[in-house]
């Protein structure tokens, strides 16, 4: 593995570099707009699925379609940190 002759020293960033109060640029503002749009799409899908009365689902085909949509919504939330 590494030997002294092929190790390249990489300096740390200046301690004063951190600035979470720096005004957000266009890229970060755009990122938040995109996230909001994705959340709205989630919400619309959630509202649509919640509007379905499970008691109205009579066939396995009906039920599987409902399960598919509901699972897809729940699956996308699986990236949340685990509960402590």
């Amino acid at each position: 593995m590494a030997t002294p002759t092929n190790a390249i020293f990489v300096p740390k960033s200046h301690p004063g570099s951190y600035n979470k109060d720096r005004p957000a640029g266009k890229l970060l503002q755009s990122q938040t707009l995109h996230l909001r749009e994705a959340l709205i799409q989630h919400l619309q899908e959630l509202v649509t699925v919640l509007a379905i009365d499970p008691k109205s689902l009579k066939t396995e085909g009906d039920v599987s379609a409902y399960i598919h949509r509901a699972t897809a919504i729940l699956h996308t939330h699986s990236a949340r940190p685990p509960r402590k």
Partner: protein
Amino acid sequence: MSVGLDNLKHIVVLMMENRSFDHMLGGLMKANPKINGLTGNESNPDSQGAIVKVQPNAQFQSQLDPDPDHHFPGVDLQIFGGAAPGPGRKANMMGFVKDYFTQTNDVNRSHNIMSYFTPDKLPVLTTLATQFAVFNGWFSSIPGPTICNRAFAHYGTSFGQVGMDIFYIKDPILSIYERMVQAEHTAKIYYYDQQSSTMEIVNLLKNQPQIFATYSQFIGDCNGGTLPEYSFIEPCYNDHPGPGGGQVLASDQHPDHNVQEGERFIASVYNAIRTNPALWQSTALLVVYDEHGGIYDHVVPPSCTADGYCAEPTNTGTSEAFNFDRLGVRVPAILVSPYIPKGTVVSGPEAAAGGRIFEHACIPGTVTNFFLNGDAKRTVREKNASTFLDLLGDQLRPDSDIPFFNLGGS
């Protein structure tokens, strides 16, 4: 097929933000004239008509604030020097200082756009560039900003977009990740953490959450030998509090984020692959920047295969439609593998013969050709894009010949 290609199992792409080739690597030409960098005599006129030469005085932070313009009309000014759109105008790369003046309103500060780093300031990027393969002719896909350029890396097209707007995929062209997964291969996008997240939100994060993981998972996958066949890494895009009250610095190198932190991030990606011997010998790592960020480069972007879309003048912000038939400004790009001979320079448009042109559509193009035998619905642009794995040769370089980055420094 070369030995290096025979042994290749993983392709990793790290896409950084908003720095031009000359700004980051232009200073390397003094030591190696094959690298198409800066002589020191390149210049632009400023808003007063004075000639401003490139200067080796780039700083890690605070020099390019406000953020240089890199949206379509601004880049048009940078490339064409202010000549109005129309037949016959020629690109001259003479509008960078003028364009930055429109943001700074300060003649002296507008000169900062001509700054470049001396190689000693960027030990990681310049070491990789000189130890492996550096591309003289890798260009951003569009003379415009981040989102549309990154789309070319994911889809081989931006579906007609030249800006940052939300877009929805309506064509039967899948992202490279979906192509891989559908063909029972493995692929992931690793974003830094949830506070930084991804730039590929509306189409992929919403609809394909299973292809995403965090950077800590990338480290775990490298250590555990579970890295997917194709990986795309996103740096940290913002400064934010870290776990346990720590501080996480943006590592994307987008102005005005600290360039040194980006150096450390590139080094950590490299080290993660480098420290697993089996992974190191079976991986090609491409480090590339999404676009130039409005910062000076001297090479005129070439024309390219049109991808069948057209952005109307209302979208380009100029008086002219854009047919996606020319590339954006040149960006740094480096391919790393122990099968690449030390000091490889891939010639670009400067070569009288044999020069090669690359852009971000080359990424899904290369991955699709290598893992899927080219079997996917793709744009003409992607099908015609150059691929880069031919740079892997037969000779495995000895470990003693391969650099390792020491990140423990103060």
